[in-house]
C-alpha cells in the first residue's frame, strides 16, 4: 500500500523499529524526540513525567480500556490507529461520557517500518484532536520479530459524565424503542473483501468513526436515553443479545427496517455471510422511550449523515432473547454465533 506521510526529518523512509527502541535508553529517547513528540506534544506529555496529573470537571467519570490487534493494520476508511482511538472513545460515549483523556500503549514488532508507525500516530492525533481528547501518557515496547503481528495498541480512556441520565442496560424498560444509527456491516464486509483468496473489487470503506458527537447531541437535546450500545465484532446481533441478557428483557426487531447498503449486501451474498452478524466500527443502538424515538432518529441522521432507523422495541416476553420478524413475515430467533463468520460455498 503506497501512501504519503510526513516522516520527521531525522528518520528516512527505510528506517525500521529495532529492539533498542523499546529498551528505555538512548534509542527510546530518540524515538520519543523524533517521532512521538512532534506529533503529540501537549502540556501533559511535555512534562515527561511517569504519569499524567489531570483535573476533571466532574467526579462522575467513565473509564474504559481496549486493545487493538486488527489485521490488516491499514484498511479502506481507516487504520489501527484511528480504530484504537474511536474504539475507546465510543465505549466512553456509550456510557454517556465526554471523552477527555487517553493513554496510548504500543507493542511493536521488531522490523516494523517507521513511516507506517508515523502514519498510524498521525491517525491517532487527527481523531483525538477533532474531539479535543488529549493523549496524556503512554508506553512503547518492542518485541522480537515473529512475536507480534506488526503492531498492537492499547488505549485507556477517561470521560466525564456531565448530565443526570443513567445510561446502562439496567435502565432499559419494556416498551423502549430501539434506534439503529445507520446501515450495518461496512467494516467487516470491506475487510473481508480485501482478504487474499477473496479479492473482491469494491469502493466500500469501513464505517470506523467516533460516536461521541452524535451521543452528545442527543444528550444536549434532552433525549431521555436509557441505554446505548455500540456495534463491534459480532455485529448487530451480538449487541442486541448483550442488552437482552443483561437487562433480562426481550428484544423484537423487524428485518425490513434494518438498513444495509448494496455493496455490503453484495459482498455478503457472494461470501454467504449474514450482515446482521458482520462487524461494525461506527454504529450504535439507542434505547429510548417511544415518544423520543422520532427525534432521536432525526438527530442521529443529521449529525452522522446516516440513515438512522427505528428497528424494534423492548418486550416483556422472550426475556433474554432477540426475536426478528423476517422479510416474509415469519419470526426467527437471533442468537449469538460461536466464532467469526467464515465465507461459505454451501
Amino acid at each position, binding site marked *: 500500500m503506497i501512501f504519503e506521510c510526513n516522516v520527521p526529518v531525522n528518520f528516512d523512509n527505510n528506517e525500521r523499529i529495532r529492539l533498542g527502541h523499546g529498551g528505555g535508553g538512548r534509542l527510546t529517547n530518540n524515538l520519543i524526540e523524533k517521532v512521538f513528540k512532534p506529533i503529540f506534544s501537549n502540556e501533559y506529555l511535555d512534562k515527561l513525567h511517569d504519569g499524567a496529573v489531570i483535573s476533571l470537571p466532574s467526579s462522575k467519570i467513565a473509564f474504559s480500556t481496549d486493545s487493538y490487534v486488527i489485521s490488516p493494520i491499514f484498511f479502506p476508511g481507516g487504520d489501527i490507529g484511528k480504530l484504537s482511538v474511536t474504539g475507546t472513545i465510543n465505549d466512553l460515549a456509550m456510557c454517556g461520557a465526554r471523552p477527555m483523556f487517553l493513554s496510548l500503549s504500543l507493542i511493536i514488532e521488531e522490523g516494523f517500518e517507521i513511516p507506517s508507525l508515523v502514519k498510524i500516530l498521525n491517525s491517532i492525533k487527527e481523531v483525538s484532536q477533532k474531539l479535543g481528547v488529549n493523549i496524556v501518557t503512554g508506553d512503547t515496547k518492542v518485541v522480537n520479530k515473529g512475536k507480534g503481528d506488526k503492531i498492537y495498541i492499547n488505549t485507556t480512556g477517561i470521560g466525564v459524565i456531565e448530565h443526570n441520565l443513567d445510561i446502562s442496560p439496567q435502565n432499559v424498560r419494556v416498551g423502549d424503542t430501539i434506534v439503529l444509527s445507520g446501515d450495518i456491516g461496512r467494516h467487516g464486509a470491506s475487510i473481508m473483501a480485501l482478504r487474499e483468496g477473496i*479479492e*473482491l*473489487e*469494491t469502493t466500500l470503506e469501513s464505517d470506523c468513526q467516533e460516536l461521541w458527537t452524535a451521543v452528545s447531541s442527543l444528550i444536549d437535546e434532552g433525549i431521555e436515553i436509557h441505554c446505548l450500545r455500540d456495534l463491534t465484532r459480532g455485529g448487530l446481533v451480538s449487541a442486541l443479545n448483550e442488552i437482552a441478557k443483561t437487562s433480562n428483557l426481550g428484544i423484537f426487531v423487524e428485518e425490513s427496517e434494518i438498513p444495509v447498503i*448494496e*455493496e455490503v449486501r453484495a459482498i455478503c451474498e*457472494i461470501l454467504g455471510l449474514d450482515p446482521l452478524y458482520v462487524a461494525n466500527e461506527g454504529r450504535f443502538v439507542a434505547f429510548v422511550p417511544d415518544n423520543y424515538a422520532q427525534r432521536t432518529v432525526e438527530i442521529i441522521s443529521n449529525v452522522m449523515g446516516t440513515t438512522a432507523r427505528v428497528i424494534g422495541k423492548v418486550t416483556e416476553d422472550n426475556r433474554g432473547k432477540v426475536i426478528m420478524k423476517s422479510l416474509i413475515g415469519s419470526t426467527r430467533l437471533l442468537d449469538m454465533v460461536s466464532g467469526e463468520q467464515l465465507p461459505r*460455498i*454451501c
Partner: protein
Amino acid sequence: MCLGVPGRVVEINYDTNPLMGKVDFGGVRREVCLEYVPDVKIGDYVIVHVGFAISKLDEEEAESVFRYLDEMNKISEQLGE
C-alpha cells in the same frame, strides 16, 4: 451446491484460457471464469458459484415466479373453483 449469486457481465477477456471476465454484483466486481457460458455477452446476467459462471440467467423465465400465481388463478376461474 448452493451459493450461486446473479451478477452482470461487464468485461470479457477473449484471449484468456480458460475464458475469464468480470462480473458486477450490486457494485462489487470480481474476476469470474466464463468458460461454461461461452456465448455470454456484456450486459448478460450469469449465476456465479465459487468464481465460475454456471449458467446464463434467462431474463424472461425470471418472471415466471411472478406469473405463476396469476396463471393458477386463471385456471381456477375457468374450472369454477
